[in-house]
């Protein structure tokens, strides 16, 4: 242990207002470059191949199903990428810095530990954002390319579905509006944003766990478990309603719900894909909740890391 006086504020602890955005940015950029060198962007090639196969293959009966499938597979791939990447990349950072002594080099300079944590986190988030943006753009291009043929098919179906009845211009326009509902909409932006927020929360949680953990493997496994439990909030709440669990079971369940982040909240993609509109208010609330979680887990990571003996 150090010889510092017990109540003195350590030199590497700084108030929030003294955090230097420039230093954080430098660290974030370095993290980003470090991660890009790990060739993570090759995943984008796999993504492109996957969505092209889905878009090209006539796997589905309904024209709307085809559009939905393109979006679903794209979002599924985005989800896999962001989750796996958020956990593994963040889990690797701290142990690797310790192993190759980069951490000592950085922290021996006047860099507060919170800046180090934020820089590392933002590096991961930046790479996540760029990869998601690229995948989202590719998906939008494919949907826009497929849209006219789906619109045509829907109008044809409308004519057939009217059972020999002639349809008016208004009805044709309605069919086109239906097709548009399955196409590109502003809600898709909200969906990808929600996915990104979720990835950010997972990264922040992983960062917190990596400050406690002694190995990358432990961090990855524990973070995966947290993500898993994070999707079970509703189940835990419903389980109480159905079963008498006793006071102990109830206490454990409540603690799980209170302590673990509710990641299921961010799962809005499926409904958006099938045409449900996410309102601005709900989107902003979701953003607020995401930022709250990120702030919370950065704070607890800092609480652990600030006094950690390295």
């Amino acid at each position, binding site marked *: 242990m150090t010889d510092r006086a*017990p109540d003195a504020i350590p030199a590497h602890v700084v108030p929030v207002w003294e955090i230097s955005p420039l230093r954080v940015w430098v660290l974030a950029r370095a993290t980003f470059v470090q991660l890009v060198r790990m060739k993570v962007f090759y995943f984008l090639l796999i993504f492109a191949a996957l969505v092209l196969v889905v878009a090209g293959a006539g*796997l*589905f*009966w*309904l024209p*709307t*199903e085809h559009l*939905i499938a393109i979006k*679903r597979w794209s*979002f*599924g791939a985005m*989800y*896999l990428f962001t*989750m796996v990447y958020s956990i593994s990349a963040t889990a690797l950072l701290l142990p690797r810095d310790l192993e190759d002594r980069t951490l000592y080099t950085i922290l021996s300079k006047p860099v507060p530990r919170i800046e180090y944590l934020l820089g590392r986190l933002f590096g991961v988030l930046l790479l996540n954002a760029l990869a998601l943006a690229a995948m989202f753009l590719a998906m939008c291009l494919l949907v826009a390319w497929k849209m006219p043929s789906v619109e045509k098919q829907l109008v044809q179906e*409308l004519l057939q*579905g*009217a*059972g*020999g*009845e*002639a349809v*008016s*211009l208004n*009805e044709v326009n*309605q*069919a086109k509006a239906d097709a548009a509902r399955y196409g590109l909409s502003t809600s898709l932006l909200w969906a990808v944003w929600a*996915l990104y927020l979720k990835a950010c929360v997972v990264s922040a949680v992983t960062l917190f766990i990596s400050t406690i953990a002694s190995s990358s493997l432990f961090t990855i496994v524990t973070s995966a478990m947290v*993500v*898993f439990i994070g*999707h*079970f909030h509703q*189940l835990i709440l*419903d389980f109480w309603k*159905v079963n008498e669990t006793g006071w102990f079971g109830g206490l454990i369940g409540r*603690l799980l*719900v*209170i*302590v673990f982040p*509710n990641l*299921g*909240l961010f*799962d*809005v993609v*499926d*409904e958006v*894909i*099938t045409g*449900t509109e*996410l*309102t601005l*208010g*709900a989107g902003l*609330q*979701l953003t607020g909740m995401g930022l*709250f979680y990120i702030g*919370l887990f950065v*704070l607890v990571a800092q*609480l*652990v890391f600030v*006094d950690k003996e390295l």
Partner: protein
Amino acid sequence: MNRRWRDLSRGPALVFLVLLVAGLVRAPLESRLLRDLRQAGFHPPLRGSSALQEVGVQGMMGALGGLRYMVSTFLTLRANFHWEFQDWENVLQNYRLVQVLEPRNPDVWITGAWHCHSNAWAWYLQDDPAHSEVTRRLLAREWLERGKEMLRQGIEWNPENPWIWRDLANLYREREGNLCEAAECYRRASLTPGAPDFLHRIYGYLLAQCGEHDEEAMKVLRGIYDEGLEVLRRQRVMIWKPSLIVEMRKLEARLGVPPESCIPERFDAEGFVIATPLLPKESLPIYERLLEKSRGPNPPAPDPALATIVARLREQLDEKSAVP
């Protein structure tokens, strides 16, 4: 002791306390957000046949996390694969899972039910080599009922979707010949928000054809006819269809409507075929014929509304031909 306590307070205990307090702060915020999202159609509350099944479904959804939609697509593909081999039980099983995963998607109910009430039904009636004719009829009936049940469940989840109602109506009409029930389903379909106009028209026709609600049918068809008159007066698009005139004439005969209250002779079914502004070239001769017909004996003036439509269509055609 003091130092130990200090270390502890800096360590796990402090972290746990922060997480606990934050959890208590966010709980009401999360509840509000969840309520708003549910109102907007997100995070549908799941339904199972029992409370425990509901919990099981929740568990499955939780385990799948954000991959729910991808798994659902895989299951749809798997159902299509089983369809190729007429393995109807597996088709049904896969679609039931898909419906659990995305109950708010009307397409999964429509397609799943279609496999039951059309594909499996027809296969058992015509192609099934393993059973006697009586058994095949029974099996076909069973699959028809499954399809019907699936559509009803789909309606429970998506009460505002007109197309599930339309499919249920067509099932009653085409498979069971129950035109009154089909009419009722079309009525419900026509009441959903954003339902196309033809659903209301078909409701009227089926009501007229079912033979049990002639007066009500006449009221509905008269309403459509009057709307058409109004549209015509506003010099826009002709919306009557031949079926409307045909059905109204039949009803007039059955109900014994006095000749002065019947629809005028000049509004003959022959004249009122499709005439939308999409097809000015095809609709012009129809309107011209109608215009000729509308010339009454005394005074021999053409209908001004029809005259305006004809003039407008001619203008449209001239404009089109003027474009190089």
